[in-house]
């Protein structure tokens, strides 16, 4: 076991898989000698050569389109989009092509690729380096959408994503890249997709969250425990699509009071799907309305980003509301 940050765990996951499987390639902007702007691909070109980790011209559409072609023809590309905010020039290739190749060809052609991209706020990046666009992609059948929140999950989910037969969008919470270290198993380490992680036990209320919101929700649950002795369960969804729906329903039923937290805007955000799932399958066990804590329904600001982003203060407020509801 080694103690790694989340971004080091991504790097370790890439190296581990590239050593094991020669068909794994990394491509993107600045992923070569610079090692990526967050250093997630540091050392890959040095170890595996430019054939297997290479800088591309500045075109996200090109990166994903070329990635699809590599995947169609027997390679396992891991494409990096430098910031999730820059993914939209490639939206067509992801949504119309990667996500639909298997279906439109009746399974004849498939796209086993991974698209890694840092998402979310917390680095003073303003409205084009901070967005959380998961909802656009979760509305796309054929894609898988994964969001780790710990170093061990980052490595384990990334290796599972690379081995997955379908295209996986791997959203990395940039705010957590270097915020803490954790022991991460060496060598091949898998965390299965479509499973949730119980971060903290409890049955007075449950918070569903993912990515950079997980530590925020943990802090809020601790504060509630200290302030009023309530036991708040925190569940990290970690794969948004396909979601482990049974686990969500079971946790909602067990706790009866639910808060959903994400950085993305509220309207048609991922929290709406969780709320609908609970309304459809657990309404009889609910003791309070579901409360969502989210970004504002605005573009991402810069100077005021700390008010836009959900923080422990806002999650505590929501937990008080669901716990006090009679």
């Amino acid at each position, binding site marked *: 076991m080694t103690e790694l940050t989340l971004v080091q765990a991504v790097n370790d996951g890439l190296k581990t898989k590239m050593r094991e499987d020669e068909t794994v390639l990394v491509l993107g902007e600045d992923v070569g000698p*610079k090692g990526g*702007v967050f250093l997630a691909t540091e050392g890959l070109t040095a170890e595996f050569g430019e054939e297997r980790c290479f800088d591309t011209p500045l075109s996200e559409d090109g990166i994903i389109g070329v990635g699809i072609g590599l995947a169609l023809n027997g390679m396992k590309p891991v494409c990096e989009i430098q910031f999730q905010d820059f993914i939209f020039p490639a939206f067509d290739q992801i949504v119309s092509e990667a996500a639909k190749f298997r279906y439109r060809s009746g399974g004849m052609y498939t796209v086993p690729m991974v698209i890694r991209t840092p998402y979310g706020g917390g680095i003073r990046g303003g409205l*084009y380096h901070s967005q959380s666009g998961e909802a656009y992609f979760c509305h796309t059948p054929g894609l898988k959408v994964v969001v780790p929140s710990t170093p061990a999950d980052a490595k384990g989910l990334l290796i599972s994503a690379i081995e997955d037969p379908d295209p996986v969008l791997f959203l990395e919470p940039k705010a957590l890249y270097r915020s803490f270290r954790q022991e991460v198993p060496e060598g091949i380490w898998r965390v299965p997709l479509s499973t949730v992680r119980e971060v903290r036990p409890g049955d007075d209320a449950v918070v569903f969250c993912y990515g950079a919101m997980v530590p925020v929700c943990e802090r809020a649950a601790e504060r509630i425990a200290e302030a009023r002795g309530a036991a708040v369960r925190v569940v990290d969804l970690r794969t948004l699509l396909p979601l482990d729906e049974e686990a969500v329903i079971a946790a909602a039923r067990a706790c009866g009071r639910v808060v959903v937290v994400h950085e993305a805007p509220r309207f048609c955000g991922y929290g709406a799907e969780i709320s609908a799932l609970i309304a459809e399958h657990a309404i009889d066990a609910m003791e309070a309305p579901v409360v969502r804590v989210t970004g*504002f329904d605005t573009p991402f600001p810069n100077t*005021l980003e700390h*008010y836009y*982003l959900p923080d422990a203060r806002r999650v505590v407020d929501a937990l008080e509301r669901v716990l006090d509801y009679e």
Partner: protein
Amino acid sequence: MAADGSALLPGRHEPLPPRADWPGLYRAMLTTRLLDDRMLKLQRQGRVAFVGAATGLEAAIHGSAAAFTAEDWVFSALREGGAAVQRGMPLEQYVAHMFGNAEDTAKGRQMPNHFQCREVNFVSWSSVIGTQLPQAVGAALAFARRGEPRVVCAYSGDGATSSNGFHSALNFAGVLRAPVVFVVIDNGWAISVPSSKQTAARSYGAKAAAYGMPGTDVDGNDVLACYRAVKEAADRARAGGGPSLVALRSYRLLGHSSSDDPSRYRDEREVEHWRRRDPLDRFAALLEAEGLLDAAGREAMAAEVRGRITEAVARAEQVGPPPLETLVEDVYAEPPRHLRRQVIEALRVVAEHGEAEAVAGRFPL
């Protein structure tokens, strides 16, 4: 001009800016250099979050910008904020934007180095590479459709030539004969990717041929050469002769931004080579040789510009952040009810639980 700026080389030089304007052109370049120096200092002190400096690119930026009239429009990329100042944007606005404070005309929503100024026809830019280029074509087309003798300057870097936007823009502009000048400031590096890995074309200027427009490649550290090439293109567009591509070959002397460490990917000797070709030194030498501005004049000019920057910074530091209510403004012409509710809710949470804590993270590049 000669590589050391000692004289104009023999041959054709027209069109050139009037000689009387040359010291002013130098002053614009110097202002950009000094603004970048100050902003980088503030960034290191944690008072400004990010700086995308233009250091080394001043001739390309200001020589090209001087070729347009006040009525023309400019679509910029990351490093052409100095052109807005050259066109008349107040320094106070420049600095307020770098601070993202309540006096920032963009209300603190963008990262620093994303300038705008309607008074000088300088359009807001996103960080998404190349997106401004087709927009510039549309704006130019509007001038043409209304029969106005105005043109559009569309800046981009070398990296943007690989973007979808670049292709669409040049293709549309060629077909529609839009009065636009695409000014590619090739600074050698798209973050860590050298121009040699950006394109296999002979040059960026050579790309114009495929779109049916004239293209030229110019020494981007020669401010007068930059002016001349872009002025010819702007004059042609204004006269109904359609779009052009002008590639200005220069060099980004510093990192991609205040947080980038270029020693990870490029050779210091290459940087040194270009540092010896500093466009400010080169133009200063010519101005001195031509008897237009001597060392004492330059010193006085620098002191005056520094003083104005100091005043603008002092003012910016007195101004607080935009109020919380601004979060929901400008999403639409009028905030819809759900946004008004969200800001009321945010104010309630502040009243009951206190203010939000500033984020801990730093911009990585």
